[in-house]
């Protein structure tokens, strides 16, 4: 038995006598418009790989990493390349559009995508294990918090794709059902950074809160610009009209910068400030492995969870056969940094613990609310929403561009 070096991670692994080697794919846009989050996700996955390989466990993971650079058209060919090498398990994707781009490949070749990001739900592919939060684990707790704490006049600003559309649909129905108002929904292309007009419109509308589903560089610029505009008007923006998000994480707070980092509300199943032995060990290992890496985030933790669960399932199944691994993963329980995590057999989504955080000046989140136990995933909101769509006052919404 001799230590072997992982060519990607640089770590050495010691293999047990009976250890089985499996090659897994890692599919993350570590460059491009949402690279800050995707790079953190890659780091989370790599950390888990290193721990597993150093663990003398039954499983040794080799990795093949591909980077689509945030270009939607590159996801499918790169993914086909991975699956063409005989790889059956790929951890990756951040945006829903990229996930939907590659799912047909996984279904065609009966491989398994381990998707480690929060998303808008209304999907349950038999070839995807979802370790990020479903909508009942992020947006519904956020709306309950916002409506109780700040008021019921919402203004929505988002990147123009399914994440924003569907979250805003859920928000609109929830807010209207509780007697509130959606003042506007404004959408921008991914990567857009000119928000002058919409910021003017927001100050004019005076919402109780602004719900943002902007991602990547668009989000960071929007946070900076609205804070600067508020200061110029003498408005205490975090108090008067806080910005709320279901995707804002610690590495992104660092990107926003010190002038506009504090006072934002985020709904997530993981914040780096969670006080637990598992999280402390996780943060220490991450800091040691990536001393110059970005801050820990929910998506990085979800990637870590995905790889840990995958390795446990491979060990339990004794094979990388997809059906056997799927069956095995539903029997695993993981003491993750966020708390106990396990996979729901019916939907292949994870039981996770919803939390609300408020960003502080140190680019971290102070926990302001936390569920008492992991919440059952409800990707179709079957158990969380009424039978009928909430009647909408159509005249209040209009296409502006």
């Amino acid at each position, binding site marked *: 038995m001799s230590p072997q070096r992982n060519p990607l991670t640089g770590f050495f692994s010691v293999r047990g006598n009976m250890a089985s080697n499996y090659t897994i794919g890692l599919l993350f846009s570590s460059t491009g418009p949402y690279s800050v989050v995707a790079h953190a996700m890659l780091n989370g996955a790599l950390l888990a790989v290193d721990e597993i390989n150093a663990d003398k466990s039954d499983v040794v993971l080799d990795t093949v990493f591909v980077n689509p650079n945030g270009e939607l058209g590159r996801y499918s060919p790169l993914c086909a390349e991975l699956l063409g090498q005989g790889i059956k398990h790929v951890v990756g994707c951040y945006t829903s559009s990229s996930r939907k781009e590659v*799912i047909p490949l996984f*279904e065609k070749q009966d491989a398994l995508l381990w998707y480690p990001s929060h998303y808008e739900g*209304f*999907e*349950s*592919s*038999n070839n995807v294990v979802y370790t990020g939060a479903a909508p009942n684990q992020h947006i519904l707790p956020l709306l309950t918090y916002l409506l109780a704490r700040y008021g019921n006049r919402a203004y929505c600003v988002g990147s123009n794709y399914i994440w924003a559309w569907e979250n805003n649909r859920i928000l609109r129905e929830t807010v209207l059902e509780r007697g509130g108002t959606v003042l506007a929904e404004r959408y921008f292309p991914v990567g857009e950074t000119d928000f002058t007009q919409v910021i003017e419109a927001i100050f004019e509308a005076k919402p109780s809160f602004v719900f943002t589903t902007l991602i990547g560089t668009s989000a960071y610029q929007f946070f900076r610009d609205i804070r600067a505009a508020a200061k110029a008007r003498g408005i205490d923006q975090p108090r008067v009209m806080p910005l709320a998000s279901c995707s804002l994480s610690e590495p992104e707070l660092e990107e926003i910068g010190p002038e506009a980092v504090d006072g934002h509300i985020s709904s997530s199943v993981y914040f780096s400030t969670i006080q637990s032995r598992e999280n402390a060990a996780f943060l220490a290992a991450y800091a040691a492995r990536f001393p110059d890496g970005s801050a820990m985030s929910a998506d990085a933790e979800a990637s870590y969870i995905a790889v840990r669960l995958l390795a446990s399932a491979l060990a339990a199944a004794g094979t990388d056969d997809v059906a056997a691994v799927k069956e095995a993963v539903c029997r695993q329980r993981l003491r993750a940094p966020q708390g106990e995590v396990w996979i729901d057999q*019916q*939907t292949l989504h994870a039981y996770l613990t919803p939390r609300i955080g408020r960003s502080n000046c140190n680019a971290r989140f102070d926990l302001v609310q936390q569920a008492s136990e992991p919440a059952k995933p409800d*990707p*179709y*909101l*079957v*158990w969380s*929403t*009424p*039978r*009928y*769509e909430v*009647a909408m006052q159509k005249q209040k919404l209009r296409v502006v561009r």
Partner: protein
Amino acid sequence: MMQPRLVQNFRGGRAFIVVNEATAIEPLVVTLGKLGVQIAGVHSDPREIDPASLQADQHFVFLDGDLQCPIAWPLSSIAQLPPAPLVGLVGVEAPSRLRALVQAGATAFLRKPVHGATVYSALYIAVNQYRQRRELEQCIDEHDRRRRGRRHVIKAVLSLVQARGIDDETAYDILRRDSMRERQSLEQYCEAFLQETSSQTGPPARRRRLNAD
């Protein structure tokens, strides 16, 4: 006309599946479970289901277009709707098979073998199309009923014009106002008014009100 509210959550619904081969529909059964829909029964012959037991707001039917036996459920008179929303399962994509499903009242289709990712869309479209057509059917039915009653309105207007020496606009306004007071449609009110007038023994309250006007 008010648009019926869209159904987007099918929790508590019960599905009947009528198929040639149960193996082709395993992903359908799995996905319906994820959507909170119970399987009420899997059959190979539609005659095994009593159409009178189907409730439009609770049941869904998934019907295989490749069945050998004919589908002879009663359809509604105007919109040709079956007793519950129906999704056609398409195997052989021939016009004769598709026509059989359309004639059975299918408002959405799923290709066999069923793919799990298409089930929510098919159910969403089938149920909401069904509800919209049912609403239109009720609307057409109501218009038909009122159209048939217009002759009572014309007769009642003429009767008032002759009896009171007023013009037809005034007579119409009187009848319309009184029908609203009685919380009846104008056609129903006029029919009753004519019956009372012809028998001369109508309720005193109605006669008094007309006289007062």
